[in-house]
């Protein structure tokens, strides 16, 4: 099975079967090594030709949907955007995303994130009652530019898989959620910064983060969640100093 000839590569895929009580085990599969094949193509080949019981998620195959994240050779990656040839001669390890409970094989349970995300209120909050019916909210290119980077997130969870703090303390809000809070804070149409700060100023908000910076390194969309978290700390610190110096004014 482990044929490491020129046009083959071994994929060492972690298998986990929830109906058995055993911990996950790596299983080797040989797949053709074609220049334009991604890790996801390799998995699809295994599923089609060798073992149809292999479970993994994917959809768009073009780095948009964010569902194909896995740990490839220990690094969280979008498998549809990761080429097998970069891992030649192999074997290349394909594991489920780290820091999440594993449902089956390469499928992880991200409910924890789905539960956290609404807590930072990632939507536009107004303190007046202007609605879409009253017309469009206009923005200048500069105003768009202020938050655009943070709006590119595809919820692929690579940053959570890379974050040791999240692995150690699952209560930590985590990179993508905080970056999305920042995305709305920086939006000129939004007035919800204070509401979000009240959530993030808690210990489980931003303070557990020790600026490892791995989230930013692995993010396929260059969102820079680590930067967003540090800027949130600066914001929280500013607010606290203000509240300390001007107890009244801060009550706005």
């Amino acid at each position, binding site marked *: 099975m482990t044929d490491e000839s020129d046009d083959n590569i071994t994929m060492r895929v972690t298998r986990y079967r929830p109906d058995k009580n055993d911990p996950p085990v790596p299983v080797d599969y040989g797949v053709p090594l074609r220049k334009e094949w991604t890790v996801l193509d390799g998995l699809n080949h295994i599923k089609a030709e060798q073992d149809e019981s292999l479970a993994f998620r994917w959809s768009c195959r073009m780095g948009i949907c964010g569902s194909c994240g896995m740990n490839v050779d220990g690094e969280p990656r979008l498998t549809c955007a990761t080429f097998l040839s970069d891992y030649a001669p192999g074997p290349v390890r394909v594991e489920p995303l780290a820091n999440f409970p594993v449902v089956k094989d390469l499928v992880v349970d991200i409910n924890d994130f789905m539960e956290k995300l609404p807590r930072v209120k990632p939507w536009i909050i107004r303190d007046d009652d202007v609605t879409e019916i009253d017309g469009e909210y206009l923005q200048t290119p500069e105003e768009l530019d202020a938050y655009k980077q943070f709006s590119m997130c595809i919820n692929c969870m690579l940053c959570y898989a890379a974050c*040791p*703090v999240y692995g*150690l303390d699952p209560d930590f809000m985590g990179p993508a959620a905080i970056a999305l809070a920042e995305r709305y804070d920086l939006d000129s149409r939004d007035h919800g910064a*204070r509401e979000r*700060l*009240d959530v993030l*100023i*808690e*210990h489980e908000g931003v*303070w557990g983060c*020790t600026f490892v910076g791995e989230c930013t390194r692995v993010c396929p969309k260059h969102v820079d969640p680590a930067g967003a978290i540090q800027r949130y*700390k600066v914001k*929280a*610190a500013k*607010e*606290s*100093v*203000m*509240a*300390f110096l001007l107890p009244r004014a*801060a*009550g706005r």
Partner: protein
Amino acid sequence: MTKRRIEPLVWLTFSGGGVAAATFLPVLALLFALAFPLGWIDPPSYDRMADLLGHPLTFLVLLGLFPVMLIHAAHRFRYTLYDGLQVKHKLLVAMLCYGGALAGSFAALVWLGNALT
């Protein structure tokens, strides 16, 4: 109303101390911990040092620097113990780290005061 939390203020001190340690400590360490003891440069005479530390401005600057650097170190080391060694007694660790920093700051205050002329 913004919630009152101690974390933002501690973090602010941590950051200030990080800047202080990055900018002020290298030259101080290079001179006093390496160059003078190893004889690369002759250490200043006692009178010169007593003069320098006797100046109120030196007193103020060092009294500003030492405590923030100690709190920076305490805060960071606290998280190193939490994350790197997964120490479970979190409150105890926090008390030892910040307590140590406060004790050091107090010692600095006393001796800096004694060195004033």
